[in-house]
């Protein structure tokens, strides 16, 4: 450890302190609030609530797959509506909103040492537009014809044709909701990016930022550039559906009748959708990468291995994620050289990702590993992400993807890599930061129970599903019926998977009970229960008061990972601790 200066010299802030907004009434303090911490909690509660609805829908999907024809309320139309809504909600309204709107809003200002986001009013609007998007989506369940059942990719022409569930209102509300979501997200995204750029406190250089902030920052830039593609696609499809244009609609003869559409291109939609869709995977994954890095370093009491490499890898993944979208379209048909290009770029993206995995493992190597609940979830993430990532390497190859693409193998792959893995990080993050948000610890025993059921259960659900895919069980089917190549054992495996899914889903009640019970009964946490170095744990009050810091903003003297520094009195040195105090 080299000290490059004397602690007394505190440079002046380059950017003026923001004028803080002060809530005057109960409504502006808890409802129409501009404080990023409150907005974060609003975002999280909304996202988790709608996510629970999607969880219940996944139960219905599984019940139908295991016991076809048993439940009268699961008609073929309902089944496709559940599949569509489950996918759309989980990817966009839960994961994207929770990582960026929830974790981003809470952690960015605290971790960079700011009082709030740079544009608090726009930030507040962001949440309310998001809530409106969610409400419009929910409204589609009650509209005539129900929500759309076009599949979460909403491929035209079938998405807006007669015969697809939700054709009267569902698809219109779905597209409107997506458009609103993107508008709301852009408002929030501007805040996250500009706060990281301009809101950092004195001494907080980019290379001293915790990786959580780096992850959310890069993911937000990705999202700001990728969501416009979904926006354009949604607007154009809405035009096709409502105004009768033919952006995506070719000439179609349906039931012997010429439809009024002509001259559109369905493939154009696929390009736009996947130009958004692939970066979306990383919009969810990059914040998870960042958060996991911090959890592992803190709970293994060891500095993160290869910090610079971690930052570079985040940037590299972000750049590469824009040139791989074609691997979602192999079976749409494409020029073979294009297939080769997309397969190659897909495999290349595994390199920076693998660097991150090695660095996490090397951080654990000879660390003082505390198997706390957040650490368990972080470890669970690494294993799950590697599992899901490796099947991604298979599917990235055209020749492997073509036979497997329409099977349960793909379902198992993307649930492992972008369903279970990020959700484990969400849980880990909540167990880790709950003490800061509420001032109380979550119950450890309940947390461990929750972890083991969720982690092992997820494997019981998705490992056998890979096998189902290998033997050719197709995805998207309402029921299999008599199929020559599918052995009867597939049916019993489906029953097994469904049982596991029901148990894992129900076990989440333990988590919610823990959240509510610990709010008043949990052990008092104190300011820094994990003995962590990052700034959010050094606030004068816990939970942090309005404006986050006291009169003075903190001054940062070191990077975020000074754990177990040789010769130091404690095994961690907070970022705002000047070097002079350090025992040498």
């Amino acid at each position, binding site marked *: 450890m080299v000290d490059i200066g004397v602690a007394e010299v505190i440079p002046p802030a*380059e950017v003026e302190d923001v004028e803080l907004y002060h809530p005057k009434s109960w409504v502006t303090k808890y409802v129409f609030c501009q404080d990023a911490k409150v907005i974060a909690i609003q975002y999280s509660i909304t996202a988790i609530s709608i996510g629970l609805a999607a969880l219940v829908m996944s139960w219905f999907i599984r019940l139908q797959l295991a016991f076809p024809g048993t439940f009268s309320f699961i008609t073929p139309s309902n089944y496709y509506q559940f599949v569509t809504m489950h996918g759309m909600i989980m990817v966009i309204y839960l994961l994207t909103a929770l990582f960026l709107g929830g974790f981003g809003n809470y952690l960015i200002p605290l971790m960079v040492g700011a009082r709030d986001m740079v544009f608090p009013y726009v930030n507040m609007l962001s949440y309310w537009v998001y809530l409106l998007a969610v409400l419009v989506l929910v409204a589609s369940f009650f509209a005539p014809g129900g929500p759309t059942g076009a599949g979460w990719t909403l491929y035209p022409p079938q998405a807006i044709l007669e015969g697809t569930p939700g054709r009267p209102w569902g698809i219109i509300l779905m597209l409107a909701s997506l458009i609103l979501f993107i508008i709301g997200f852009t408002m929030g995204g501007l805040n996250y990016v500009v706060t990281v750029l301009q*809101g950092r406190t004195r001494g907080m250089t980019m290379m001293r930022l915790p990786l959580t902030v780096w992850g959310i920052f890069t993911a937000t830039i990705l999202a700001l550039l990728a969501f416009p*593609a979904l926006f*354009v696609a949604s607007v154009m499809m809405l035009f096709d559906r409502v105004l009768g244009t*033919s952006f995506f609609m070719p000439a179609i003869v349906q039931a012997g009748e010429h439809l009024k559409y002509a*001259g559109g291109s369905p493939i154009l939609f696929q390009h736009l959708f996947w130009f958004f869709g692939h970066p979306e995977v990383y919009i969810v994954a990059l914040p998870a990468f960042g958060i996991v890095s911090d959890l592992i370093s803190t709970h293994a009491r060891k500095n993160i291995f290869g910090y610079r490499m971690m930052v570079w890898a985040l940037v590299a993944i972000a750049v590469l994620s824009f040139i791989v979208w074609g691997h979602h379209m192999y079976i749409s048909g494409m020029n073979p050289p294009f297939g080769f290009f997309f397969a190659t770029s897909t495999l290349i993206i595994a390199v920076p990702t693998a660097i991150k995995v090695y660095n996490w493992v090397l951080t654990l190597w000879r660390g003082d590993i505390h198997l706390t609940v957040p650490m368990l979830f972080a470890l669970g993430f690494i294993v799950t992400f590697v599992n899901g990532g490796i099947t991604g390497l298979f599917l990235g190859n055209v020749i492997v993807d073509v036979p497997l693409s329409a099977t349960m193998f793909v379902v198992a792959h993307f649930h492992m890599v972008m369903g279970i893995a990020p959700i484990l990080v969400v849980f880990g993050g909540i167990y880790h930061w709950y003490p800061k948000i509420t001032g109380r610890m979550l119950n450890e025993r309940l947390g461990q129970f929750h972890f083991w059921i969720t982690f092992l259960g997820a494997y019981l659900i998705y490992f056998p599903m890979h096998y189902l895919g290998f033997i050719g069980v197709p995805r998207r089917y309402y029921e299999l019926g008599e199929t020559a190549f599918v052995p009867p054992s597939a049916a019993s495996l489906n029953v097994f998977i469904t049982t596991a899914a029901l148990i894992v889903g129900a076990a989440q009640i333990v988590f919610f009970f823990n959240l509510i019970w610990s709010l008043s009964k949990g052990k008092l946490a104190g300011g820094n229960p994990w003995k962590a170095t990052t700034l959010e744990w050094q606030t004068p009050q816990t939970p942090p008061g309005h404006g986050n810091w006291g009169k003075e903003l903190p001054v940062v003297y070191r*990077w975020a990972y000074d754990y177990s520094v040789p010769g130091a009195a404690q095994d961690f040195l907070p970022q705002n601790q000047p070097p002079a105090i350090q025992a040498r």
Partner: protein
Amino acid sequence: MNILYLFLAVIAAIVAWWLVQQRLTAKPWLEAGPIGATGASSLPTAKIGLGVFLAVVGCLFSLLISAYAMRMDMGEWRPAPVPALLWLNTVMLILSSGALQWARVAARRGGMDGVRAGLLTGGGMALAFLAGQLIAWHQLDAAGYYLTANPAAAFFYLISGVHGLHILGGLVALGRTMDKAWQGVAGGNVRLSVELCAMYWHFLLFVWLVLFGLLLLTDPIESDSGLVSLIWRIF
């Protein structure tokens, strides 16, 4: 997707330029101690915010243009005629942008009369542009190129509509700036608002010039040389 990637390359260049200044090769674990500069920009935060927003808007229009070009490539392309009125509208938008630039220069010199005149002219010209666009829509519609007539017409209404909505949003910001200028708020505050408006207007003018250039193309662009021929035809 050529145009989109051209746009993303510009964004990537800006990001790379910025990253280079952030000492990405620093070894933060060896550098405990106070650091003078954090690497934050000395530009006003609002300007950075607008810059990021314009990047998003730019992405939106690049995607629309890319979709348009891709659709042109796919065959059976029957272009819509370009109303001559669009030339006049283009002049209006250029004047509008110029007037705001004038207001910006006046604000820098502290001449409030110039600021007010510039803002008023700029706003008026922008309204004239929007009115002109509506008339152009009407002319196309009357000529049989209504919204659902063919993809070329649909693209024209969509893209010019999205552009018009952005101008309309800008007019709201311009109205608030005018309010400030007439209320006689402290000079620096007005100056920043005027600069932001001018930045936004110049950007939307640039977008319109690209869109208009694209509309003037009558033949589908070849996919291999799409970008080159596009630039060739525009200039």
